[in-house]
């Protein structure tokens, strides 16, 4: 069953009078249970795709459509997209001093539960669950008391993103270069977290520069994004070919 359907997507970035076209007719279809990797040269629009799908301010959809579980994403605010089941693991997770991680996670879980008409979790059980999840991605539970990502190293920030992924259990996870800046141990922890998350009832879009991540998270499809469009799709062997030959032969 189709989870994410992106058709002929055109999007621009920037203020109204100086918009720059980045996505120029992008198509991608992600079914439940699938992992899609999106690779491509710098400036091809990979992060823009993640930002447009999640509704980051500053981007404008000028043509085409994007739906998640048959709902039109373009009509929804970022928090409504999250409530629908979309999750973006940030390339650069934001530091928020003064708001503790635990408080933030509780606000998030409560908002999602409320939006879905579910019961909000009991606080004690919630804290226990979060501590276990933090430990499972090698994040010291002490970090939960600190400000959101405050003073975290690059690797700790990325592990915090994966912890949130496991906690929130979205329908679709978009990972925007979650592997960048990670050492090999952290990369394995992140990959293990994503593998633990994925199942027959969700989908994953992995945006990455490096084939290395795909050794740990095996994609069903690999797409090459260049100049705002998917120019080549294939299975995991495409990633190896790219590692070998670069992007020049496609663009």
């Amino acid at each position, binding site marked *: 069953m189709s989870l994410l359907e992106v058709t002929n997507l055109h999007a621009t970035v920037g203020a109204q009078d100086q918009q720059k076209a980045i996505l120029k007719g992008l198509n991608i279809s992600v079914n439940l249970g699938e992992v899609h990797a999106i690779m491509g040269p710098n400036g091809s629009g990979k992060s823009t795709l993640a930002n447009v799908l999640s509704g980051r*301010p500053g981007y404008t959809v000028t043509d085409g459509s994007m739906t998640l579980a048959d709902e039109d994403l373009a009509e929804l605010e970022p*928090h409504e*997209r999250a*409530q629908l089941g979309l999750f973006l693991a940030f390339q650069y997770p934001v530091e*928020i001093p*003064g708001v503790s991680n635990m*408080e*933030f996670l509780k606000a998030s879980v409560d*908002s999602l539960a409320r939006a879905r008409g579910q019961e909000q979790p009991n606080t004690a059980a919630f804290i226990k669950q979060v501590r276990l999840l933090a430990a499972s991605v090698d994040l010291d539970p002490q970090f939960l008391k600190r400000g959101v990502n405050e003073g975290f190293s690059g690797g700790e920030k990325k592990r915090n993103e994966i912890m949130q992924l496991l906690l929130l259990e979205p329908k679709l996870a978009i990972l925007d270069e979650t592997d960048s800046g990670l050492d090999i141990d952290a990369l394995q922890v992140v990959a293990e977290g994503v593998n633990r998350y994925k199942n027959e009832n969700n989908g994953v879009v992995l945006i990455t520069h490096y084939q290395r991540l795909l050794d740990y998270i095996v994609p069903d499809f690999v797409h090459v994004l260049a100049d705002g469009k998917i120019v080549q799709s294939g299975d995991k062997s495409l990633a190896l070919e790219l590692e070998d030959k670069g992007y020049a032969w496609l663009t």
Partner: protein
Amino acid sequence: MADLSLPQVVTIPNYFSQGLLALPAELADSNDAPSLLTAALNSTLHRERWKYSKTAPVLEGLNNAMNLPTIVGGEQPGIQINHEPQQNLGFGFDLSQAPEAFARLCYAQQVLFIHVENALEAPLEIHHSDSTVPVLLSLGANADAILLETFTGNLQPQNTLWISLAEGSHLKHSRNSLDEAKLHWQYLAVDIGKNADYLLNNHAAGAGLRRQDIQIRISGQGANAELISASMISGKMALDQQVTLEHLVANGKSKQVVHNIVADGGKCTFNGRIHIYEGANGTDATLSNKNLGLGKNATINTKPELEIYTDDVTCAHGATIGQLSDQELFYLTSRGISPQAAQALLSEGFLRQCTQGPLAEAALPILINAIKQEQVA
């Protein structure tokens, strides 16, 4: 600009002539206190410091009736409370910096002298209800105390507090000024002796106008001062914070972090001056004032100032005026949190960074509630 004047002729209290308190240097060689005070009130320096608050209503209130504050913890061993000074406790009065505060001390029929001789077991609490008599708190050498100061009142209260810290003493001072007064003036002067420590955790919510003068002097080598302050100024209210931190001697350390939220229609002024005197080598002084404006018509004035007359110092100061960060808002909303709830979380987080100490728990709900009220409005 009309000349400023005091409401009543000043008579210098007897304990000054008995040598128990040191007269301001200017008065030591003169017996014409009234004209010296008038000159100080109308000096450029003083005018500048009162530029954002109306001075006249405060001056008119200087000789209004004063009541005794409620003192809790004053019975414990190590504390003496008197209405006359019993010994010279090292208080300093600066006429040019605060002529109005000195005048108020002179007008007071009664003054409270609190002396702490050693380490206290329990906190000392001072609760002000409306205008209270001047309080002079001194800590003897190596004494150690926690001071909790709160305020209630709604008209035009004035509270004046002088603190003198002798060598090696430690004072942790927490102050909550959360009641809505029409015009509240709080004057605080702290003199920190050699190797002594002073910490002020200051929390304020809006009043018609709340004016906080804070004058801290590092007058002994190796002394340490810290000011951590959080305020929430609701619509149509105003806060004016005038902080002076003087490093008179070498190897002192000071840190100031002041976070203020100003709602639509509110007004906030922060003037933080660090003065490092000649010879105050090895001083380490930092000052950060951050302001968050909510809504379109918040007024925020901030002026961090450094005056440095020596070379060997470490100094940093900065001030920001901004709105909530779009990046932070997007991060929170991308996790399903509504924009309104995200704004509340971020505003609370901004204040929480500077809400610390024993009175934080009492202050936070009131400050946060004021943020929520603004959102509803």
